[in-house]
């Protein structure tokens, strides 16, 4: 299978990621609206005590999803940018090393937020599990390793370009 061009794995991935990004954007906008609407609903029904508490639970679950989808959207956008440089034939640039690193940080924030929301849910009746897996942390480490490999690759490419 070719690395770039029509029918290549990169182009298939790009199509898949573009579709994913559209879906994520729709979900993210929906969650953003919900983040504003749910507290307003709680204020309106402030007189009815139990409903107000239910509003807090919902708000926590929506906020949790908002952060998760935000992280996913960020990661997918960065991956599309990386694939774009591959299409132009210049994947080994310092910018891609930085992109991989920011993806690593975003995943770290996402996983951290997942745990934090899990603990916060203990205070309410929100249905969020405190759940983290070793394989997720290994994947995050792998992204950071990839970032460093790209940094060295970019340095080597620059050296090769400046060898006469």
């Amino acid at each position, binding site marked *: 299978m070719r690395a770039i061009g029509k029918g290549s794995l990169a182009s298939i991935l790009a199509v898949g990621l573009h579709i994913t990004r559209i879906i994520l954007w729709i979900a993210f906008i929906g969650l953003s609206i919900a983040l504003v609407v749910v507290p307003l609903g709680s204020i309106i029904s402030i007189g009815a005590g139990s409903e107000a508490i239910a509003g807090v639970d919902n708000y926590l679950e929506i906020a949790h999803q908002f952060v998760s989808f935000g992280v996913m959207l960020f990661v997918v956008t960065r991956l599309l940018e990386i694939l774009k440089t591959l299409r132009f034939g210049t994947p080994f640039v310092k910018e891609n090393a930085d992109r991989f690193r920011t993806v690593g940080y975003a995943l770290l924030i996402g996983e951290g937020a997942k745990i934090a929301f899990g603990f916060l849910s203990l205070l309410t009746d929100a249905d969020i599990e405190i759940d983290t897996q070793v394989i997720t942390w290994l994947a995050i480490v792998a992204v950071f390793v990839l970032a460093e490999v790209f940094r060295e690759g970019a340095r080597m490419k*620059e050296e090769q370009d*400046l060898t*006469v």
Partner: protein
Amino acid sequence: MTISVKLDRVLLDRGMSLTELSERVGVTIANLSILKTGKAKAIRFSTLEAICQELKCQPGDILFFDDEDAVADAAE
């Protein structure tokens, strides 16, 4: 960078243009320009050999080592 390139001086002495040298040694003007302006990170022996052959000079006529630390120490 402590290695400096004096290709422009040798070219001037020989009355040869960069374009002419490029055609003779088979290295693109862009690459020779990188070398001339001191932006190059490395030079292949084959390139150096071809340049020296065409300019009838020694590698030492083109490449110089500026020992900045030694100069600074002497100044102190």
